[in-house]
């Protein structure tokens, strides 16, 4: 949800990193990114949270 807000308010080309402790995020966010036409830069599992990086493409 925070990602959607950041994408909405960002510029094309912005790279946004989401830090999430919700296990569902690393499943849900890539699905949304694909549907919304942006680029998934990467998903990294850190200590107790996931880092999901997205580039706004349109």
């Amino acid at each position, binding site marked *: *949800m925070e990602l*959607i*807000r950041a*994408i*909405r308010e960002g510029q094309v080309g912005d790279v946004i990193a989401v830090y999430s402790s919700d296990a*569902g995020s690393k499943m*849900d966010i890539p*699905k*949304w990114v694909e*549907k*919304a*036409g942006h680029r998934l830069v990467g998903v990294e599992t850190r200590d107790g949270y996931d880092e999901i990086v997205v580039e706004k493409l*349109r």
Partner: protein
Amino acid sequence: MNRVVILGGGVGGTLVANLLVRKLRYDIDRHEASVTLVDQLGQHVYQPGFMYIAMGGERAEKLVRPERSLLDEEVQLQVGRISLIDEANSLVELEDGTQIGYEELVIATGSRIVPEEIEHFGEEAHHFYTAEAALELRHALDAFTGGRIVIGIAGLPYKCPPAPLEVAFLIESELRERGLRKKSEMHYCSPIGRAFTIESVSEMATPILAQKGIELHTFFNVEAIDPARKVVQSLEGEELAYDLLILVPPHRGAKLVIDSGLAPASGWLPTDHHTLQVGGRPNVYALGDATDLPLSKAGSTAHFEAPIVAERIAATVQGREPNGKHASYTGKVMCFFEVGDGKGTLLQFDYDHPPKPPTPNRFWHLGKIIFNKTYWHTVPRGRV
């Protein structure tokens, strides 16, 4: 003198005020503490009733009572619009120039809707987040003779997360009763990848949507409305045609807390999950819709947060540690969920335990109706 000032006379503010005077009775009698509640209109509005103006024959005038009538007589009520929280001088200033100093501050200023953030929202979309809008939706439903109904969400977070699903279920039931169901299509747009944020609730609601023939569109974040073509467009690049459009408007926190530098542009106050203190400040608390907590924006949330705020402030005033089950907030929320056809269920959860909603039945629907009717005598006074 310990002056406790509470901003906002909704569920959270009213309940904190009433619980605090009970805990501080001795201190107030000795003039060592005071509790002041500031409300812009001096009216307490039962917002969960709005949906029933649209869906259940509720009347707006029954949803409002004077704030004074709900407050313990020891609570001082100040009616007026707040223009500034002046942290440097520990005071709040009202638009008429009145200044109220505090030692402890409770921010219960709720959320506000900002439909104007979506162009054409006002002319094209209906909602049920004010009494007036809910009545207009009722009139639109009365005039509806068949066609495409699109129900969607135009911004996260928003008040009462189950409400748009409930409205979809209730409208579907109504259309069947009126013999219009076969002449109508219903579409429900969820901003995320499933019908509802909480997975267990989504698992309960998705088959009900399917059974009722309401088409679910996931990842549909409403971004724009094209009134000429009567289509609603999503951030994800899809569009849906409508004859009747019902959208949850975007929400923000109170402008006051943004202007006073306590919250970012979204207006949601950075709030500790357990102590409910704002941004690490020891003497400023937030509850209800005003916070940025990962919980439903609902009266129920404020209802279960209020005892923690009251206990923590009373402990500070009395120079003791907070104790008992209200020393720390666990994220408890409990709310009813209508599924139509006179049935409902109950969602009860906290930070660590997702809800396990019982199979929808008549009991929980009646529970919601009775709760709505008895609210005035129970919640604000701290009786439940």
